[in-house]
């Protein structure tokens, strides 16, 4: 640990807090329709789509639009990946994907997960990256924002069953938020040295006569939406550790900020849209508290040698799998940011983190990605926890639970439970299947508890739509001269793909259903007996609910993997 490291963390937290209300104000104006500089383009587009922006959809209509458009986007992406060899912009003549890895990748980018069994620079053409993956980077983030906007609208609505128009929300999210921010972040990244070229791969002979082959590509634009949309799918296999994706301390800082900017900004938007900014700050505060603890634990854990380093006689910090330009501080902070948000970009090898340093990222994902969480999905999942918190507190004080003046009744609670419990259940079941069956074994790389950690991390990450990995776990075997060329490990590909789709769409539908049920509900006036949800006290309740649900579900599993390694110097 260094003073400079702690200073960087403090600066980061301060900047994030400072931009939250600014972004929140901007988002509010965009989604209230007060800000529409490209109104004409928008209107023409809606006419072309056959959508009437003035005719709101009820929750079922909204959900239908989400599902149908996602299905079509998914089909397109799958076809692009499977027919890669006939497309232009493929300087390396890379072949088309196999069915299983392509399915996994499609599910991954459709669900804003960006779990990657493939290795970008050796598997995908420039065309597949930009027309296939980058598009989904925008769309899956836009869908997340649209759904949370619809949910917040329902919370604020006083009458009617309409929660918004999906295509309008999606278009605004992309046109006014994601696209302009991506261009700005993209140019900042290029100025630091991130690639943005269609040049062919090229050789160079170094100072001692050793030849290196350089992979290039249109990276910066995709990198920008990768972080802003909490997607996380790297252009290169080693993601943001690759200097061509993340070359400097500044590019790293900008990427971390871009990951949390929108999830944090949305909390402020929420406060504004329900006409009580303190509601937004309460959620922000709960997220920030959990986040600060996570950062600190990872930073402390990575400062100092691991058991393997000690066995080799090394006494310094754990720099195995980390880059010097980031050091321990920026690597620890990045890993906390990326697993708190459901981003999954990494600037260091998560698998090589110390026992506790690796347990915290897993634990953050296991909360259901609500510590900031994904763009849109983080806030809507957290608001389900808020409803749960209101319900539990209501039971304790013996009053009908109310949230923002709306009665929380049996239907909402049932849906909330589905939305919060479905993913953890799926994570446990898929991990158990992969560990307990012989089909899961070929994916595992390391022996001992680490092999278990790899598996648990893989299905936690996919189920919660994060996308980071203990990257020894594999679902794709590269051609290596001794096998018959590349092939997928179908079991891991399909199981992971299903986990990602379930992890995305089950909570999303539950949230929309709760929105439908709360929209237009009568709002009762605030009285003396009202349980207020905009106070620090309630923030504590919220944190407790999140921790209890996550810990009760996952501590036994965490103990078997990373914690047991953190607690001993035993080598396996």
């Amino acid at each position, binding site marked *: 640990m260094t003073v400079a490291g702690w200073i960087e963390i403090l600066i980061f937290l301060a900047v994030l807090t400072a931009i939250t209300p600014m972004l929140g104000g901007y988002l509010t104006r965009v989604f209230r329709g007060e800000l529409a500089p490209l109104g004409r383009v928008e209107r023409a587009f809606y006419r072309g789509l056959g959508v009437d922006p003035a005719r709101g959809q009820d929750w079922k209509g909204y959900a239908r*639009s989400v599902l149908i458009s996602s299905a079509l986007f998914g089909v397109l992406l799958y076809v692009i990946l499977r027919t890669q060899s006939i497309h232009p912009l493929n300087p390396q003549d890379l072949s088309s994907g196999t069915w299983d890895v392509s399915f996994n990748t499609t599910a991954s980018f459709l669900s804003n997960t960006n779990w990657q069994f493939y290795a970008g620079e050796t598997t995908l053409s420039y065309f597949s990256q930009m027309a296939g993956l980058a598009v989904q980077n925008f769309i899956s983030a836009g869908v997340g924002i649209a759904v949370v906007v619809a949910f917040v609208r329902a919370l604020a609505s006083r009458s009617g069953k309409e929660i918004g128009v999906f295509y309008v929300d999606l278009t605004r999210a992309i046109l006014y938020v994601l696209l302009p921010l991506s261009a700005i972040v993209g140019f900042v990244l290029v100025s630091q040295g991130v690639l943005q070229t269609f040049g062919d791969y090229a050789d160079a002979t170094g100072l001692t006569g050793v030849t290196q082959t350089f992979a290039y590509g249109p990276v910066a634009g995709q990198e920008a939406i990768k972080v802003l949309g909490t997607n996380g799918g790297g252009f290169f296999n*080693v993601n943001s550790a690759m*200097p061509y994706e993340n070359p400097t301390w500044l590019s790293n800082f900008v990427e971390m900020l871009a990951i949390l900017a929108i999830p944090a900004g949305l909390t402020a938007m929420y406060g504004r849209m329900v006409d009580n900014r303190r509601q937004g700050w309460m959620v922000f505060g709960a997220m920030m508290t959990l986040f600060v603890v996570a950062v600190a634990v990872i930073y402390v854990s990575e400062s100092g040698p691991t058991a393997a380093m000690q066995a080799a006689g090394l006494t310094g910090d754990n720099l195995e799998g980390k880059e010097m330009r980031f050091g321990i501080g920026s690597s620890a902070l990045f890993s906390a940011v990326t697993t708190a948000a459901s981003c999954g970009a990494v600037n260091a090898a998560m698998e090589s983190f110390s026992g506790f340093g690796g347990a915290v990222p897993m634990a953050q994902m296991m909360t259901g990605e609500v510590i900031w969480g994904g763009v849109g999905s983080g806030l809507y999942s957290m608001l389900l926890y808020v409803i749960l918190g209101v319900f539990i507190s209501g039971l304790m004080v013996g009053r009908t639970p109310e949230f923002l003046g709306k009665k929380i009744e049996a239907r909402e609670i049932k849906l909330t439970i589905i939305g919060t419990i479905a993913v953890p259940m799926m994570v446990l079941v898929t991990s158990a299947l992969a560990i307990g069956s012989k089909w899961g074994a070929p994916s595992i790389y390391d022996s001992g508890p680490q092999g278990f950690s790899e598996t648990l991390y893989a299905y936690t990450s996919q189920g919660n739509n994060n996308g980071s990995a203990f990257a020894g776990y594999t679902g794709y075997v590269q051609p290596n001269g001794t096998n018959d060329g590349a092939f997928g490990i179908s079991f891991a590909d399909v199981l992971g793909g299903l986990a990602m789709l379930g992890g995305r769409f089950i909570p999303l539908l539950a949230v929309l259903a709760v929105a439908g049920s709360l929209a237009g509900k009568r709002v009762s006036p605030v009285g003396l007996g009202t349980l207020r949800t905009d106070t620090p006290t309630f923030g504590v309740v919220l944190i407790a609910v999140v921790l209890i649900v996550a810990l009760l579900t996952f501590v036994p599993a965490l103990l078997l993997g990373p914690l047991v390694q953190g607690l001993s110097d035993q080598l396996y």
Partner: protein
Amino acid sequence: MRELKTAAIAVIAFTVVLGLAYPLLMTGVSQVVFPGRADGSMIERDGKVVGSSLIGQDFSKDTSYFQSRPSATGYSPSATFFNNHGPNQQDLADQLKGYVDAYLEREQPYTPGLTAADIPSDAATTSASGVDPHISEDNARIQANRVAEERGLDRARVLELIDDNASRSLFGLAGDKSINVLELNLDLDREASR
């Protein structure tokens, strides 16, 4: 049916705008405003490309150069992967032991009394990308003894060059100090030819 048509039009429109227009525009502007940077920050010497200032390379053939960190990928910038061993793996311990021994063998003759415990951990661990262009300042200072002697340079001058190639984040307030190995080695070559 209408719903399906709407979705189909949206898919096509968004793919054209986000998947083609956006990357083409980004590339066009970047190529004009940041030529070089957008193309990989390649470094030329005597008209020939010798590498990229952002990408580490293998100097192990010539010990009169500063050496990069160990790499699990043979310093490949076109097939990157992590080393991917957990913190308690025997495999990793063996690997690291190999790096420690190699470092001691290379540096001990020039830095007598150097032990494993003195080795900065960046010098005996693999980087994340396999092409980390930097080493730590402590690592560079130990290597300076060898480089100065092999090249017949004044040690103080070599330390100066290290300082010239150190990157400090946010005026040294945040992050750690690191040294760009390729740029440092290019400076060394220039020094010798003067």
